Protein backbone atom coordinates (compact mmCIF):
# COMPACT_ATOMS: atom_id res chain seq x y z
CA UNK A 1 0.00 0.00 0.00
CA UNK A 2 1.24 3.47 -0.78
CA UNK A 3 2.03 6.03 1.89
CA UNK A 4 -0.74 8.30 0.71
CA UNK A 5 -3.34 5.61 1.07
CA UNK A 6 -2.04 4.87 4.55
CA UNK A 7 -2.45 8.54 5.31
CA UNK A 8 -6.04 8.69 4.13
CA UNK A 9 -6.96 5.53 5.95
CA UNK A 10 -5.38 6.73 9.18
CA UNK A 11 -7.36 9.93 8.92
CA UNK A 12 -10.50 7.89 8.54
CA UNK A 13 -9.50 5.62 11.42
CA UNK A 14 -8.84 8.62 13.65
CA UNK A 15 -12.27 10.00 12.83
CA UNK A 16 -13.81 6.62 13.56
CA UNK A 17 -12.10 6.36 16.94
CA UNK A 18 -12.70 9.93 17.99
CA UNK A 19 -16.04 9.36 19.76
CA UNK A 20 -14.49 6.60 21.89
CA UNK A 21 -12.10 8.99 23.54
CA UNK A 22 -13.16 9.81 27.06
CA UNK A 23 -13.26 13.52 27.60
CA UNK A 24 -15.16 16.12 29.55
CA UNK A 25 -16.32 17.93 26.49
CA UNK A 26 -16.95 14.86 24.36
CA UNK A 27 -20.41 15.81 23.24
CA UNK A 28 -19.29 19.32 22.47
CA UNK A 29 -16.44 18.00 20.35
CA UNK A 30 -18.68 15.54 18.58
CA UNK A 31 -21.15 18.28 17.78
CA UNK A 32 -18.39 20.42 16.27
CA UNK A 33 -17.49 17.56 13.99
CA UNK A 34 -21.12 16.80 13.19
CA UNK A 35 -21.61 20.36 11.98
CA UNK A 36 -18.38 20.22 10.06
CA UNK A 37 -19.62 17.07 8.33
CA UNK A 38 -22.92 18.78 7.62
CA UNK A 39 -21.13 21.64 5.91
CA UNK A 40 -18.92 19.30 3.93
CA UNK A 41 -21.92 17.35 2.68
CA UNK A 42 -23.79 20.48 1.66
CA UNK A 43 -20.81 22.06 -0.09
CA UNK A 44 -19.71 18.89 -1.83
CA UNK A 45 -23.17 17.97 -3.08
CA UNK A 46 -23.85 21.55 -4.16
CA UNK A 47 -20.88 21.40 -6.48
CA UNK A 48 -22.27 18.44 -8.40
CA UNK A 49 -24.58 20.87 -10.13
CA UNK A 50 -22.36 23.97 -10.12
CA UNK A 51 -18.78 22.78 -10.54
CA UNK A 52 -19.52 19.86 -12.80
CA UNK A 53 -22.48 21.22 -14.75
CA UNK A 54 -22.17 24.99 -14.47
CA UNK A 55 -25.57 25.76 -12.99
CA UNK A 56 -25.60 28.02 -9.95
CA UNK A 57 -28.21 26.42 -7.73
CA UNK A 58 -28.76 28.97 -5.00
CA UNK A 59 -31.64 26.85 -3.74
CA UNK A 60 -29.54 23.84 -2.84
CA UNK A 61 -30.48 24.27 0.81
CA UNK A 62 -34.10 23.44 -0.05
CA UNK A 63 -33.09 19.78 -0.28
CA UNK A 64 -31.59 19.91 3.17
CA UNK A 65 -34.57 21.71 4.66
CA UNK A 66 -37.07 19.45 2.98
CA UNK A 67 -35.17 16.43 4.26
CA UNK A 68 -35.14 17.88 7.75
CA UNK A 69 -38.86 18.59 7.76
CA UNK A 70 -39.96 15.40 6.03
CA UNK A 71 -37.98 13.37 8.49
CA UNK A 72 -39.32 15.27 11.48
CA UNK A 73 -42.91 14.84 10.35
CA UNK A 74 -42.52 11.15 9.53
CA UNK A 75 -40.60 10.43 12.70
CA UNK A 76 -43.25 12.14 14.76
CA UNK A 77 -45.85 10.05 12.96
CA UNK A 78 -44.20 7.05 14.59
CA UNK A 79 -41.98 5.72 11.83
CA UNK A 80 -38.74 4.10 12.86
CA UNK A 81 -35.56 6.07 12.26
CA UNK A 82 -34.30 4.18 9.19
CA UNK A 83 -37.70 4.19 7.54
CA UNK A 84 -38.29 7.88 8.21
CA UNK A 85 -34.80 8.61 6.91
CA UNK A 86 -35.33 6.59 3.75
CA UNK A 87 -38.71 8.13 3.03
CA UNK A 88 -37.40 11.64 3.69
CA UNK A 89 -34.64 11.09 1.15
CA UNK A 90 -37.20 9.74 -1.31
CA UNK A 91 -39.32 12.86 -0.85
CA UNK A 92 -36.31 15.09 -1.47
CA UNK A 93 -35.18 13.23 -4.57
CA UNK A 94 -38.73 13.24 -5.90
CA UNK A 95 -38.90 16.95 -5.28
CA UNK A 96 -35.61 17.46 -7.14
CA UNK A 97 -36.93 15.47 -10.06
CA UNK A 98 -40.17 17.43 -10.11
CA UNK A 99 -38.56 20.88 -10.09
CA UNK A 100 -35.86 19.89 -12.51
CA UNK A 101 -37.76 20.23 -15.78
CA UNK A 102 -39.30 23.65 -15.19
CA UNK A 103 -36.25 25.15 -13.51
CA UNK A 104 -33.71 23.90 -16.01
CA UNK A 105 -35.48 25.71 -18.81
CA UNK A 106 -33.73 28.70 -17.30
CA UNK A 107 -30.06 29.41 -17.64
CA UNK A 108 -27.34 31.52 -16.08
CA UNK A 109 -28.51 34.33 -13.88
CA UNK A 110 -32.15 33.41 -14.39
CA UNK A 111 -31.62 29.94 -13.00
CA UNK A 112 -29.74 31.37 -10.04
CA UNK A 113 -32.52 33.85 -9.47
CA UNK A 114 -35.32 31.32 -9.64
CA UNK A 115 -33.60 28.89 -7.31
CA UNK A 116 -32.85 31.72 -4.90
CA UNK A 117 -36.52 32.63 -4.98
CA UNK A 118 -37.38 29.01 -4.32
CA UNK A 119 -35.64 29.17 -0.94
CA UNK A 120 -37.81 32.04 0.17
CA UNK A 121 -40.91 30.50 -1.31
CA UNK A 122 -40.34 27.19 0.46
CA UNK A 123 -39.62 29.00 3.70
CA UNK A 124 -42.88 30.89 3.49
CA UNK A 125 -44.82 27.79 2.57
CA UNK A 126 -43.29 25.97 5.52
CA UNK A 127 -44.28 28.81 7.82
CA UNK A 128 -47.79 28.95 6.44
CA UNK A 129 -48.50 25.23 6.59
CA UNK A 130 -48.55 25.35 10.36
CA UNK A 131 -50.76 22.28 10.78
CA UNK A 132 -48.08 20.14 9.17
CA UNK A 133 -44.84 21.84 10.03
CA UNK A 134 -45.54 23.71 13.22
CA UNK A 135 -45.17 26.97 11.31
CA UNK A 136 -42.80 29.54 12.70
CA UNK A 137 -42.94 27.84 16.09
CA UNK A 138 -40.92 25.03 14.64
CA UNK A 139 -41.08 21.28 14.80
CA UNK A 140 -40.00 19.18 17.79
CA UNK A 141 -39.18 15.51 17.93
CA UNK A 142 -38.74 13.60 21.15
CA UNK A 143 -35.55 15.03 22.59
CA UNK A 144 -32.50 12.86 23.22
CA UNK A 145 -28.77 13.09 22.94
CA UNK A 146 -27.97 11.09 19.80
CA UNK A 147 -24.49 12.50 19.25
CA UNK A 148 -22.87 9.09 18.85
CA UNK A 149 -25.02 7.60 16.08
CA UNK A 150 -25.39 11.00 14.44
CA UNK A 151 -21.63 11.36 14.35
CA UNK A 152 -21.12 8.02 12.64
CA UNK A 153 -23.95 8.45 10.18
CA UNK A 154 -22.74 11.92 9.26
CA UNK A 155 -19.23 10.61 8.73
CA UNK A 156 -20.61 7.87 6.54
CA UNK A 157 -22.54 10.41 4.49
CA UNK A 158 -19.38 12.46 4.05
CA UNK A 159 -17.48 9.45 2.77
CA UNK A 160 -20.40 8.53 0.54
CA UNK A 161 -20.75 11.96 -1.00
CA UNK A 162 -17.05 12.10 -1.80
CA UNK A 163 -17.03 8.63 -3.29
CA UNK A 164 -20.13 9.37 -5.31
CA UNK A 165 -18.68 12.63 -6.66
CA UNK A 166 -15.67 10.64 -7.69
CA UNK A 167 -17.76 7.98 -9.39
CA UNK A 168 -19.84 10.56 -11.20
CA UNK A 169 -16.78 12.44 -12.35
CA UNK A 170 -15.53 9.36 -14.17
CA UNK A 171 -18.85 8.32 -15.58
CA UNK A 172 -20.69 8.97 -18.80
CA UNK A 173 -23.08 11.14 -16.86
CA UNK A 174 -20.21 13.21 -15.48
CA UNK A 175 -18.84 13.80 -18.95
CA UNK A 176 -22.25 14.85 -20.21
CA UNK A 177 -22.54 17.27 -17.30
CA UNK A 178 -19.15 18.76 -18.12
CA UNK A 179 -20.16 19.18 -21.74
CA UNK A 180 -23.30 20.99 -20.63
CA UNK A 181 -21.20 23.28 -18.46
CA UNK A 182 -18.95 24.17 -21.35
CA UNK A 183 -21.66 24.71 -23.97
CA UNK A 184 -25.11 23.26 -23.55
CA UNK A 185 -26.18 23.84 -27.11
CA UNK A 186 -23.17 22.09 -28.56
CA UNK A 187 -23.63 19.26 -26.09
CA UNK A 188 -27.15 18.75 -27.40
CA UNK A 189 -25.91 18.91 -30.97
CA UNK A 190 -23.64 16.01 -30.20
CA UNK A 191 -26.31 13.82 -28.77
CA UNK A 192 -26.29 14.67 -25.08
CA UNK A 193 -29.88 14.40 -23.80
CA UNK A 194 -29.45 17.55 -21.76
CA UNK A 195 -32.78 17.67 -19.94
CA UNK A 196 -32.40 14.14 -18.71
CA UNK A 197 -28.79 14.67 -17.69
CA UNK A 198 -29.67 17.82 -15.78
CA UNK A 199 -32.52 16.08 -13.98
CA UNK A 200 -30.27 13.21 -13.00
CA UNK A 201 -27.58 15.58 -11.78
CA UNK A 202 -30.03 17.53 -9.67
CA UNK A 203 -31.47 14.38 -8.17
CA UNK A 204 -28.04 13.03 -7.33
CA UNK A 205 -27.09 16.35 -5.75
CA UNK A 206 -30.27 16.20 -3.66
CA UNK A 207 -29.74 12.78 -2.08
CA UNK A 208 -27.09 13.72 0.45
CA UNK A 209 -28.43 17.07 1.63
CA UNK A 210 -31.77 15.32 2.07
CA UNK A 211 -30.14 12.64 4.14
CA UNK A 212 -28.04 15.00 6.23
CA UNK A 213 -31.13 17.18 6.73
CA UNK A 214 -32.96 14.23 8.25
CA UNK A 215 -29.99 13.46 10.45
CA UNK A 216 -29.87 17.11 11.44
CA UNK A 217 -33.41 16.99 12.80
CA UNK A 218 -32.63 13.75 14.62
CA UNK A 219 -29.61 15.41 16.15
CA UNK A 220 -30.90 18.81 17.23
CA UNK A 221 -34.45 17.60 18.02
CA UNK A 222 -35.95 20.90 16.98
CA UNK A 223 -36.10 22.78 13.70
CA UNK A 224 -37.76 25.95 12.55
CA UNK A 225 -37.98 27.59 9.13
CA UNK A 226 -35.42 30.25 9.84
CA UNK A 227 -32.91 27.63 10.96
CA UNK A 228 -33.09 25.43 7.88
CA UNK A 229 -33.94 27.99 5.19
CA UNK A 230 -32.01 30.94 6.63
CA UNK A 231 -29.74 32.87 4.31
CA UNK A 232 -26.64 31.96 6.29
CA UNK A 233 -27.12 28.23 6.04
CA UNK A 234 -28.34 28.59 2.46
CA UNK A 235 -25.34 30.46 1.21
CA UNK A 236 -22.37 29.40 3.34
CA UNK A 237 -22.04 25.97 1.68
CA UNK A 238 -21.92 27.69 -1.68
CA UNK A 239 -19.24 30.05 -0.44
CA UNK A 240 -17.37 27.03 0.90
CA UNK A 241 -17.51 25.21 -2.41
CA UNK A 242 -16.26 28.22 -4.29
CA UNK A 243 -13.63 29.01 -1.66
CA UNK A 244 -12.28 25.48 -1.77
CA UNK A 245 -12.33 25.18 -5.53
CA UNK A 246 -15.48 24.59 -7.47
CA UNK A 247 -15.12 21.93 -10.12
CA UNK A 248 -12.40 20.06 -8.31
CA UNK A 249 -13.25 16.76 -6.74
CA UNK A 250 -12.42 17.69 -3.17
CA UNK A 251 -12.40 21.47 -3.56
CA UNK A 252 -15.64 21.92 -1.63
CA UNK A 253 -14.40 19.68 1.18
CA UNK A 254 -11.33 21.82 1.58
CA UNK A 255 -13.38 25.00 1.51
CA UNK A 256 -15.81 23.62 4.06
CA UNK A 257 -13.10 22.53 6.48
CA UNK A 258 -11.25 25.79 6.09
CA UNK A 259 -14.17 28.15 6.45
CA UNK A 260 -15.85 26.17 9.21
CA UNK A 261 -12.71 25.90 11.29
CA UNK A 262 -11.84 29.52 10.71
CA UNK A 263 -15.27 30.50 11.93
CA UNK A 264 -15.24 28.16 14.92
CA UNK A 265 -11.73 28.96 16.01
CA UNK A 266 -11.48 32.62 15.19
CA UNK A 267 -14.40 34.86 14.98
CA UNK A 268 -17.10 33.15 16.98
CA UNK A 269 -15.10 34.41 19.92
CA UNK A 270 -15.65 37.98 18.90
CA UNK A 271 -18.49 39.78 20.58
CA UNK A 272 -19.41 41.79 17.49
CA UNK A 273 -19.25 41.85 13.73
CA UNK A 274 -18.97 38.11 13.16
CA UNK A 275 -21.29 38.45 10.20
CA UNK A 276 -19.19 41.24 8.77
CA UNK A 277 -16.04 39.14 8.93
CA UNK A 278 -17.84 36.27 7.26
CA UNK A 279 -19.00 38.73 4.61
CA UNK A 280 -15.50 40.01 4.14
CA UNK A 281 -14.15 36.51 3.65
CA UNK A 282 -16.86 35.83 1.08
CA UNK A 283 -16.09 39.05 -0.78
CA UNK A 284 -12.39 38.26 -0.84
CA UNK A 285 -13.02 34.76 -2.15
CA UNK A 286 -15.22 36.14 -4.91
CA UNK A 287 -12.70 38.80 -5.82
CA UNK A 288 -9.40 37.01 -5.70
CA UNK A 289 -9.92 33.30 -5.81
CA UNK A 290 -12.02 32.23 -8.76
CA UNK A 291 -10.06 28.98 -8.72
CA UNK A 292 -10.33 28.40 -5.00
CA UNK A 293 -7.86 27.14 -2.41
CA UNK A 294 -7.40 23.74 -4.01
CA UNK A 295 -5.99 25.30 -7.15
CA UNK A 296 -3.33 27.24 -5.25
CA UNK A 297 0.08 25.84 -6.07
CA UNK A 298 1.02 24.36 -2.70
CA UNK A 299 -2.37 22.83 -2.02
CA UNK A 300 -2.67 21.41 -5.52
CA UNK A 301 0.78 19.84 -5.19
CA UNK A 302 -0.14 18.23 -1.90
CA UNK A 303 -3.40 16.87 -3.30
CA UNK A 304 -1.62 15.58 -6.35
CA UNK A 305 0.79 13.73 -4.12
CA UNK A 306 -2.04 12.03 -2.25
CA UNK A 307 -3.53 11.04 -5.59
CA UNK A 308 -6.88 11.52 -7.37
CA UNK A 309 -7.88 14.25 -4.95
CA UNK A 310 -6.82 16.95 -7.36
CA UNK A 311 -8.96 15.59 -10.14
CA UNK A 312 -11.58 17.61 -11.84
CA UNK A 313 -15.18 16.70 -11.69
Amino acid at each position, binding site marked *: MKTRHVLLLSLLAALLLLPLVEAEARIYILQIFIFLFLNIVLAQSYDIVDGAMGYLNLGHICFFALGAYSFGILYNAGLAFPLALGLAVAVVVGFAGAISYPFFRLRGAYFALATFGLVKLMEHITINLGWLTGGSNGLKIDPADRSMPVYYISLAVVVAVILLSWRVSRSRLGL*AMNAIRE*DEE*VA*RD*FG*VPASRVKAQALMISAVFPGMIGAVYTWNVNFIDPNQVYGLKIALTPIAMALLGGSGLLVGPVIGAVFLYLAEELLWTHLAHLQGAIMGLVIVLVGLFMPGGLARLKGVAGLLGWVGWLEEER
Partner: protein
Amino acid sequence: MVPILSAQNVSKHFRGLEALSGVDFQVAEGSITSVIGPNGAGKTTLFNVIAGNQAPNGGQIRFRERVISGLAPNSICRLGIARTYQNVRPFLGLSVWNNVKVALLFGRREPLPSAREDAEIESVLEFAQLTAHPARKAETLTPLERKRLEIARALATDPEVMLLDEIVAGLSPAEALQMMETIRVLNGRGITILLIEHVMKAVMGLSSHIIVLHHGVKIAEGAPKDIARDQEVIRAYLGDAGEEG
Protein backbone atom coordinates in the same frame (compact mmCIF):
# COMPACT_ATOMS: atom_id res chain seq x y z
CA MET B 1 -33.04 6.84 -55.40
CA VAL B 2 -34.33 8.60 -52.29
CA PRO B 3 -32.07 11.54 -51.42
CA ILE B 4 -30.39 11.15 -48.06
CA LEU B 5 -31.35 14.65 -47.03
CA SER B 6 -34.03 16.88 -48.49
CA ALA B 7 -35.96 20.03 -47.71
CA GLN B 8 -39.49 20.81 -48.77
CA ASN B 9 -40.56 24.42 -48.78
CA VAL B 10 -38.59 25.32 -45.67
CA SER B 11 -39.07 28.78 -44.19
CA LYS B 12 -37.56 30.47 -41.19
CA HIS B 13 -38.08 34.04 -40.16
CA PHE B 14 -36.70 36.15 -37.34
CA ARG B 15 -39.26 38.77 -36.49
CA GLY B 16 -39.64 40.54 -39.85
CA LEU B 17 -36.59 39.05 -41.49
CA GLU B 18 -37.03 36.16 -43.93
CA ALA B 19 -33.86 34.16 -43.35
CA LEU B 20 -35.19 31.25 -45.40
CA SER B 21 -38.23 31.27 -47.61
CA GLY B 22 -39.63 28.27 -49.38
CA VAL B 23 -36.32 26.48 -49.78
CA ASP B 24 -36.35 23.09 -51.54
CA PHE B 25 -33.35 20.93 -52.16
CA GLN B 26 -32.11 17.37 -52.27
CA VAL B 27 -28.77 15.95 -51.29
CA ALA B 28 -27.80 12.73 -53.04
CA GLU B 29 -26.33 10.02 -50.88
CA GLY B 30 -22.54 9.93 -51.11
CA SER B 31 -22.27 13.34 -52.72
CA ILE B 32 -20.44 16.49 -51.74
CA THR B 33 -23.03 19.21 -52.04
CA SER B 34 -22.26 22.87 -51.41
CA VAL B 35 -24.44 25.68 -50.23
CA ILE B 36 -23.18 29.05 -51.32
CA GLY B 37 -24.48 32.58 -51.20
CA PRO B 38 -23.48 36.06 -50.04
CA ASN B 39 -23.22 37.00 -46.36
CA GLY B 40 -26.54 36.80 -44.62
CA ALA B 41 -28.04 34.60 -47.33
CA GLY B 42 -29.38 32.15 -44.77
CA LYS B 43 -26.82 29.35 -45.11
CA THR B 44 -26.06 28.92 -41.44
CA THR B 45 -29.74 29.22 -40.66
CA LEU B 46 -30.35 26.33 -43.03
CA PHE B 47 -27.84 24.22 -41.10
CA ASN B 48 -29.44 25.21 -37.81
CA VAL B 49 -32.80 24.11 -39.11
CA ILE B 50 -31.44 20.81 -40.39
CA ALA B 51 -29.60 20.07 -37.16
CA GLY B 52 -32.65 20.90 -35.08
CA ASN B 53 -31.21 24.00 -33.38
CA GLN B 54 -34.00 26.12 -34.78
CA ALA B 55 -37.47 24.95 -35.67
CA PRO B 56 -38.55 26.00 -39.17
CA ASN B 57 -41.64 28.20 -39.39
CA GLY B 58 -42.84 26.16 -42.32
CA GLY B 59 -41.88 23.18 -44.42
CA GLN B 60 -40.08 19.96 -43.63
CA ILE B 61 -36.65 18.46 -43.53
CA ARG B 62 -36.36 14.78 -44.33
CA PHE B 63 -33.58 12.34 -43.62
CA ARG B 64 -34.26 9.67 -46.21
CA GLU B 65 -38.03 9.19 -45.83
CA ARG B 66 -38.18 10.31 -42.26
CA VAL B 67 -39.30 13.81 -41.33
CA ILE B 68 -36.76 15.15 -38.85
CA SER B 69 -37.83 18.76 -38.46
CA GLY B 70 -39.26 19.06 -34.98
CA LEU B 71 -36.88 16.53 -33.47
CA ALA B 72 -34.44 17.65 -30.79
CA PRO B 73 -30.85 18.23 -31.91
CA ASN B 74 -29.57 15.32 -29.83
CA SER B 75 -31.95 12.95 -31.60
CA ILE B 76 -31.01 14.27 -35.00
CA CYS B 77 -27.36 13.77 -34.22
CA ARG B 78 -28.06 10.18 -33.24
CA LEU B 79 -29.81 9.59 -36.53
CA GLY B 80 -26.51 10.24 -38.24
CA ILE B 81 -26.26 13.96 -38.97
CA ALA B 82 -23.26 15.72 -37.43
CA ARG B 83 -22.26 19.34 -37.79
CA THR B 84 -19.45 21.81 -37.33
CA TYR B 85 -19.81 25.50 -36.53
CA GLN B 86 -18.82 28.51 -38.56
CA ASN B 87 -17.28 29.98 -35.42
CA VAL B 88 -15.69 26.93 -33.88
CA ARG B 89 -17.21 25.86 -30.58
CA PRO B 90 -15.02 23.33 -28.84
CA PHE B 91 -15.77 22.49 -25.20
CA LEU B 92 -13.03 24.85 -24.11
CA GLY B 93 -12.57 23.54 -20.59
CA LEU B 94 -12.47 19.87 -21.59
CA SER B 95 -9.48 17.98 -22.90
CA VAL B 96 -9.20 17.24 -26.59
CA TRP B 97 -9.81 13.61 -25.73
CA ASN B 98 -13.01 14.35 -23.83
CA ASN B 99 -14.27 16.68 -26.53
CA VAL B 100 -14.23 13.71 -28.87
CA LYS B 101 -15.45 11.32 -26.21
CA VAL B 102 -18.66 13.29 -25.64
CA ALA B 103 -19.54 12.93 -29.29
CA LEU B 104 -18.52 9.29 -29.33
CA LEU B 105 -20.55 8.34 -26.27
CA PHE B 106 -23.69 10.30 -26.99
CA GLY B 107 -23.80 11.04 -30.68
CA ARG B 108 -23.74 7.58 -32.25
CA ARG B 109 -26.70 5.60 -33.43
CA GLU B 110 -25.44 2.48 -31.74
CA PRO B 111 -23.20 2.76 -28.73
CA LEU B 112 -19.74 1.34 -29.16
CA PRO B 113 -18.79 -1.53 -26.85
CA SER B 114 -16.85 0.18 -24.10
CA ALA B 115 -13.77 -1.91 -24.78
CA ARG B 116 -13.47 -0.26 -28.19
CA GLU B 117 -14.07 3.32 -27.12
CA ASP B 118 -10.46 4.29 -26.52
CA ALA B 119 -9.22 2.78 -29.75
CA GLU B 120 -11.94 4.58 -31.66
CA ILE B 121 -11.14 7.93 -30.07
CA GLU B 122 -7.50 7.42 -30.91
CA SER B 123 -8.26 6.66 -34.52
CA VAL B 124 -10.49 9.72 -34.81
CA LEU B 125 -7.79 11.92 -33.28
CA GLU B 126 -5.26 10.44 -35.62
CA PHE B 127 -7.45 11.14 -38.61
CA ALA B 128 -7.77 14.76 -37.48
CA GLN B 129 -4.03 15.00 -36.72
CA LEU B 130 -4.64 15.78 -33.07
CA THR B 131 -2.78 12.91 -31.46
CA ALA B 132 0.02 15.08 -30.08
CA HIS B 133 -1.61 16.17 -26.80
CA PRO B 134 -4.94 14.49 -26.18
CA ALA B 135 -4.94 15.63 -22.54
CA ARG B 136 -4.59 19.31 -23.40
CA LYS B 137 -7.60 21.48 -22.78
CA ALA B 138 -9.25 22.65 -25.97
CA GLU B 139 -8.73 26.27 -24.94
CA THR B 140 -5.01 25.83 -25.61
CA LEU B 141 -5.50 24.79 -29.24
CA THR B 142 -4.54 26.96 -32.21
CA PRO B 143 -7.28 28.04 -34.64
CA LEU B 144 -6.27 25.33 -37.11
CA GLU B 145 -6.31 22.67 -34.40
CA ARG B 146 -9.72 23.87 -33.31
CA LYS B 147 -11.04 23.37 -36.81
CA ARG B 148 -9.59 19.90 -36.82
CA LEU B 149 -11.26 19.24 -33.50
CA GLU B 150 -14.59 20.24 -35.05
CA ILE B 151 -14.03 17.57 -37.69
CA ALA B 152 -12.91 15.01 -35.14
CA ARG B 153 -15.93 15.59 -32.98
CA ALA B 154 -18.31 15.26 -35.89
CA LEU B 155 -16.54 12.16 -37.14
CA ALA B 156 -16.74 10.51 -33.73
CA THR B 157 -20.51 10.33 -34.02
CA ASP B 158 -20.05 8.00 -36.99
CA PRO B 159 -22.32 10.17 -39.14
CA GLU B 160 -23.93 9.49 -42.47
CA VAL B 161 -24.15 13.18 -43.24
CA MET B 162 -21.73 15.89 -42.17
CA LEU B 163 -22.70 19.55 -42.24
CA LEU B 164 -19.53 21.61 -42.57
CA ASP B 165 -20.02 25.35 -42.06
CA GLU B 166 -17.12 27.30 -43.59
CA ILE B 167 -14.55 24.81 -42.41
CA VAL B 168 -12.04 25.95 -45.04
CA ALA B 169 -12.53 29.69 -44.53
CA GLY B 170 -9.76 31.42 -42.67
CA LEU B 171 -7.08 28.83 -43.40
CA SER B 172 -3.85 29.52 -45.23
CA PRO B 173 -3.72 28.21 -48.81
CA ALA B 174 -1.67 25.19 -47.78
CA GLU B 175 -3.94 24.39 -44.86
CA ALA B 176 -6.97 24.86 -47.07
CA LEU B 177 -5.66 22.27 -49.52
CA GLN B 178 -5.09 19.89 -46.66
CA MET B 179 -8.61 20.46 -45.33
CA MET B 180 -10.05 19.85 -48.80
CA GLU B 181 -8.19 16.59 -48.93
CA THR B 182 -9.61 15.69 -45.53
CA ILE B 183 -13.11 16.36 -46.80
CA ARG B 184 -12.48 14.18 -49.83
CA VAL B 185 -11.27 11.34 -47.64
CA LEU B 186 -14.33 11.64 -45.41
CA ASN B 187 -16.50 11.50 -48.47
CA GLY B 188 -14.53 8.50 -49.66
CA ARG B 189 -15.51 6.75 -46.45
CA GLY B 190 -19.11 7.03 -47.51
CA ILE B 191 -20.07 10.14 -45.58
CA THR B 192 -22.32 12.49 -47.48
CA ILE B 193 -21.03 16.05 -47.16
CA LEU B 194 -23.06 19.24 -47.12
CA LEU B 195 -20.69 22.15 -47.25
CA ILE B 196 -21.11 25.89 -46.73
CA GLU B 197 -18.21 27.72 -48.24
CA HIS B 198 -17.19 31.13 -49.49
CA VAL B 199 -13.84 29.93 -50.80
CA MET B 200 -14.69 29.30 -54.44
CA LYS B 201 -11.70 27.14 -55.14
CA ALA B 202 -12.87 24.72 -52.47
CA VAL B 203 -16.44 24.79 -53.66
CA MET B 204 -15.62 24.27 -57.30
CA GLY B 205 -12.95 21.70 -56.57
CA LEU B 206 -14.95 19.56 -54.20
CA SER B 207 -18.60 19.63 -54.94
CA SER B 208 -20.64 17.64 -57.38
CA HIS B 209 -23.70 19.77 -56.79
CA ILE B 210 -24.17 23.38 -55.70
CA ILE B 211 -27.16 25.15 -54.15
CA VAL B 212 -27.22 28.93 -54.24
CA LEU B 213 -29.09 30.95 -51.63
CA HIS B 214 -29.73 34.65 -51.78
CA HIS B 215 -31.82 36.54 -49.24
CA GLY B 216 -33.19 33.24 -48.02
CA VAL B 217 -34.33 32.10 -51.46
CA LYS B 218 -32.78 29.36 -53.52
CA ILE B 219 -31.92 31.13 -56.75
CA ALA B 220 -30.08 28.35 -58.53
CA GLU B 221 -28.66 24.89 -58.27
CA GLY B 222 -26.72 22.55 -60.45
CA ALA B 223 -23.30 21.30 -61.35
CA PRO B 224 -20.35 23.62 -60.58
CA LYS B 225 -19.70 24.53 -64.19
CA ASP B 226 -23.31 25.54 -64.73
CA ILE B 227 -23.44 27.60 -61.57
CA ALA B 228 -20.29 29.43 -62.57
CA ARG B 229 -22.05 30.50 -65.77
CA ASP B 230 -25.49 31.21 -64.30
CA GLN B 231 -26.29 34.87 -64.89
CA GLU B 232 -28.50 35.30 -61.86
CA VAL B 233 -25.88 33.79 -59.60
CA ILE B 234 -23.20 35.99 -61.03
CA ARG B 235 -25.38 39.02 -60.50
CA ALA B 236 -26.44 38.13 -56.96
CA TYR B 237 -23.36 36.53 -55.68
CA LEU B 238 -20.22 36.38 -57.72
CA GLY B 239 -20.63 40.08 -58.40
CA ASP B 240 -20.02 41.10 -54.81
CA ALA B 241 -18.40 38.21 -53.02
CA GLY B 242 -16.86 36.08 -55.72
CA GLU B 243 -13.48 37.73 -55.99
CA GLU B 244 -12.04 35.98 -53.00
CA GLY B 245 -12.28 32.57 -54.68
